[in-house]
């Protein structure tokens, strides 16, 4: 087992995974940071049980998604989506790209917690077997659910675009 320093460096290298999960599950910078901290904490606590049978990144997705799914606030059941803010890294990006990403996040934010996890894994290029292994369900179930989620997401994206235009 690595020490805290080595483990935090490992997380630093793979932090994009946690950021993607927080973007999908939490609204607003403060909530995203809270969730990021909680995921880091749970990763560290769960690491002694990590078996090398799975890839480290697959295990990271499991911990991050389980933390996000199980983190509920009684007075914040359906948060409204907060627009993305410009960052230094996006200063030169076109407004169009930003709008597209925002539309996608807004649509994903309307899905239920399980559907969010499945679509996130699919968007992250995980194959059906990996998604099934992370979610603990069958490949067939993943495939059926993905068809439904993608259809729903496309509807939500087109509705959002219509509303904006």
């Amino acid at each position, binding site marked *: 087992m690595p020490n805290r320093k080595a483990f935090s*460096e490992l997380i630093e290298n793979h*932090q994009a995974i946690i*950021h993607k999960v927080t973007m999908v599950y939490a609204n607003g910078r403060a909530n995203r940071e809270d969730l990021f901290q909680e995921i880091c904490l749970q990763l560290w*606590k769960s690491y002694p049980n990590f078996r090398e049978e799975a890839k480290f990144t697959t295990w990271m997705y*499991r911990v991050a998604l389980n933390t996000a*799914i199980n983190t509920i606030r009684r007075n914040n059941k359906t948060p409204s989506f907060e627009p993305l803010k410009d960052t230094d890294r996006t200063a030169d990006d076109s407004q169009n*790209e930003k709008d597209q990403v925002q539309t996608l996040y807004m649509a994903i934010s309307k899905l239920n917690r*399980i559907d969010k996890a499945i679509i996130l894994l699919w968007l992250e290029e995980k194959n059906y077997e990996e998604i099934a292994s992370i979610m*603990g369900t069958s490949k067939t179930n993943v495939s059926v659910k993905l068809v439904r989620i993608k259809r729903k997401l496309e509807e939500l*994206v087109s509705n959002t675009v219509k509303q904006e235009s």
Partner: protein
Amino acid sequence: MNDNDKKLKAMWNKAENFMEGSGYESETIERFMSKRSNSIADKIRKTLQIDIALKFLFAVIFTLDTALYFKIQPKVAWICITAIIIVIPLIMFEFRVISRFNRISDYGMNTKEKLSKMLAFLKNDFLTAVLSITTTYLFLYISGLLLYFFVTYGQLRRLGNMDIFVFSTLALIGIFISFTSNYAQVRYQIKHIETCLSDLNDNLLEIVTSNIEIQRKHDKTTKMLFGLVLIFGFIVLIVILKKLGF
């Protein structure tokens, strides 16, 4: 992959450019790892730990009460000994619940397993633990009252009807608030997990619920033991109230 899939993935791939604060240093991450958790799991663990500490404290007060009353009112001393005999198994039961909980608190298992185990824990172990936690108010009431009477009057004296009414009402309010607040929290969490399991697979909740029922039947011995402890507690309260002149 059809055009819509490609479009969705293309949109997603652009998302990385719009992430805020995506460059945490390892020192910051190390700091995050040392922070206090806000998860429901840690709240449950803390609730049980605090309750064990309180029950242990009341067991000590009952021991003190036993020593104080043994010469002047031996019957009261025997009631205190009975209370200690009831508190100890409850402390052991709550320790067992924490140990079971630690086994399921790993977030590295798959989502279905995590949700199913958490649901089984909340429906079986923790609901029984909530009842055990509720009894703490009873022990607080009895042990504190006995100590107060000894310090103030040097013995357990008879009370008027109004005194008994006020003391009993306060104890019942404490018990009621403790039970409803803990139960409401568990119910809310159970509802959330059940929704997630249904969303994961239409038939999953049914299967998990039937497994929990089987486990619940296997756990009958614990439940019976716990029921006996509660009945004993109730009898102790009645005896004390009678002694007080009810």
